[in-house]
């Protein structure tokens, strides 16, 4: 078991990503930092438009430019600076040491190739295997991710499989070259709950076996609670709170985190009425001088509206970007 004291496999420092043409520029990701260690899972949680998916695309250097633009920061993967890496080396990393799983397996698998062919291609390119060896490895991978009758499935086209099976193929594809880092962007959002449970369990088992680091992007706090070791909460392009999972749920500090947790209906808790966060996320082009959550925050005062709060540590590994934190006088 690696400890967080080891150098992280991935570290992101002060990442800034902008989109736009001419004067219409908006910053989708604004100063995001975190790191992921081998054998551990970091979750990025937030609502639509918070910049979580752009962050994951930026790490893989898949933000299309233009209109996208890296406006600052560093992304380091196992000592290599990804933002200055030549394209050919970046291509070798993607699908090789960095595996990816996307939300919608139907649109991320090529419909005119069999599932097997897509994995075999990846194995031939990255692992330099012969056609026969690659096919055998593909069948092995299909077996590993729990696809029934894997030797038949390799010759199936994506449309012949169910949603859960397609996501298993995506995972097999992502794992084909024993990645050091698996980036999963909403991997179970399009799936039914019973299938979601299967896929999450599979990812966890594979992590235990291979020691891969996982960066999990999700909007679902339930998924975070069950799978992540550490959590980054994002709002409108910035990190508002960051903590080990248990600490975040036991001791949420940012008003946005608190609002989000209280807004989730619970299957195991009785509540008459759900708490809500008033208003909605500011549009990306809004120019916000202070805290981006200020317009929806009941605690917001003049300082919040003019000065962006820095992300500061309030406990071991627990950091929060709020002028008012901790909002209770005494911490429990």
């Amino acid at each position, binding site marked *: 078991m690696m400890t967080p004291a080891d150098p992280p496999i991935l570290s992101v420092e002060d990442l800034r990503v902008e989109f736009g043409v001419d004067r219409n520029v908006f910053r989708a990701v604004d100063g995001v930092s975190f790191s992921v260690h081998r054998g551990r899972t970091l979750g990025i949680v937030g*609502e*639509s438009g918070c910049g979580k998916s752009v962050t994951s695309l930026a790490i893989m250097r898949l933000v299309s430019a233009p209109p996208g633009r890296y406006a600052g920061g560093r992304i380091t993967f196992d000592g290599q600076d990804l933002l200055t890496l030549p394209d050919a080396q970046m291509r070798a990393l993607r699908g090789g040491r960095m595996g990816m799983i996307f939300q919608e397996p139907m649109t991320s698998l090529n419909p005119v190739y069999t599932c097997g062919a897509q994995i075999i291609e990846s194995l031939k390119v990255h692992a330099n295997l012969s056609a026969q060896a690659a096919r055998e490895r593909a069948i092995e991978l299909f077996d590993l991710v729990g696809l*029934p009758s894997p030797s038949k499935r390799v010759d199936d086209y994506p449309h012949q499989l*169910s*949603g*859960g*099976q397609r996501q298993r193929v995506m995972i097999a594809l992502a794992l084909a070259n024993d990645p050091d880092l698996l980036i999963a962007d909403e991997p179970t959002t399009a799936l*039914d*709950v*019973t*299938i*979601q*449970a*299967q896929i*999450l*369990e599979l990812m*966890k088992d594979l992590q235990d076996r291979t020691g891969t680091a996982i960066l999990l992007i999700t*909007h*679902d*706090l*339930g*998924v*975070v*609670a*069950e*799978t992540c070791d550490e959590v980054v909460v994002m709002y409108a392009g910035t990190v508002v709170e960051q903590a080990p*999972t*248990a600490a975040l*749920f*036991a*001791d*949420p*500090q940012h*008003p946005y985190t*608190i*609002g*989000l*947790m*209280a*807004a*989730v*209906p*619970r*299957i*195991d*808790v*009785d*509540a008459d*009425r*759900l*708490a*809500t*966060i*008033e208003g*909605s*996320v500011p549009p990306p082009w809004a120019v916000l001088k202070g805290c981006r959550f200020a317009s929806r925050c*009941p*605690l917001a005062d003049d300082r919040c509206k003019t000065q962006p709060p820095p992300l500061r540590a309030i406990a071991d590994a627990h950091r929060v970007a709020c002028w008012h934190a901790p*909002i*209770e006088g005494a911490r429990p």
Partner: protein
Amino acid sequence: MSALLEVEGLTKHFPVRRGLLRRVVGTVQAVTDVSFTVNAGETLAIVGESGCGKSTTGRALLRLIEPTSGTMRLDGTDLMTLSRADLRQMRKRMQIIFQDPYGSLNPRMTVREVLSEPLLLHGVATQANLQAKVAEVLGLCGLSSFHAERYPHEFSGGQRQRVGIARALATRPRLIVCDEPVSALDVSVQAQIVNLLQDIQKQLGVAYVFISHDLAVVRHIATRVAVMYLGRMVEEAPSAELFAAPLHPYTRSLIAAAPRPDPSAGRVHASVEGDLPSAMNPPTGCAFHPRCPLAVDRCRAERPELRTIGDTRVACHLAEPATMRAQTRPLDANTPLARRLAVLAAARTRNKETTPA
């Protein structure tokens, strides 16, 4: 007291045609022999995974999809035999809200036009009081009258769903079918819409058929819950009963699979293996038997009928009165989350007092 909506033996089978002559080569048994009642002012939730027939059931209730067979009565009126004109009249009394409010609102109509149409068609408003009626229904849904001149694309997802609710509510129906109304929304907005639906129900006494795949939302909003699997109802019970003592193994695995936002609850383990079978070729006997951890020979051969155990109707050969009840707990007011929420709520109240709107 007779129920507001009575559904008996509702069935919808879609023919599957293939080849040049469009010969029927099979049927998709989307919904088979579904029966339930909905009382005035209550919420019946229909839950299940994709392909279980819950949306087809919802649409069949309004005859947006013509049922193959079955009977449906709203307030005693037989819905199956209504002519098209009478059916249109009946739509005044039953309405539907869709999952994707963007897809279900005409992008070329302003909100005023969207709302005026049903108001005028059903004679709820006249040209003279149209303005006031539109403002009234917007107000019910937490929108302001200035929103009336806007087009759907000018709204956020949550506001668009409010417009969708306003449209359904315009004619003051007795029953609204809500087909995954909050599934496409972000958590914080989802909570606003769930609260809105509950407020409207309290105020107007409208009944909901709430179709959803999200058990946590259902537990929060439903009076009674019906669970569907592969086109058939497998369990139906009062909400509290269903979540405390689920009798069908499928219901139990659905509840177990729902992720809980609580790291101390431990990891969920997938309790069902495999995928939903094809509705064109459902398994023999109990449709759930290939995935059921308890299945015995009888389950493979003989389809279980719904039977009553206590307040629950369940279709399982092996179901027995529950001996154990799951513990649900009231929201603990002394957790850090609850205390901080109280701090935020107090600040919000204070803000409202100091800055009059």
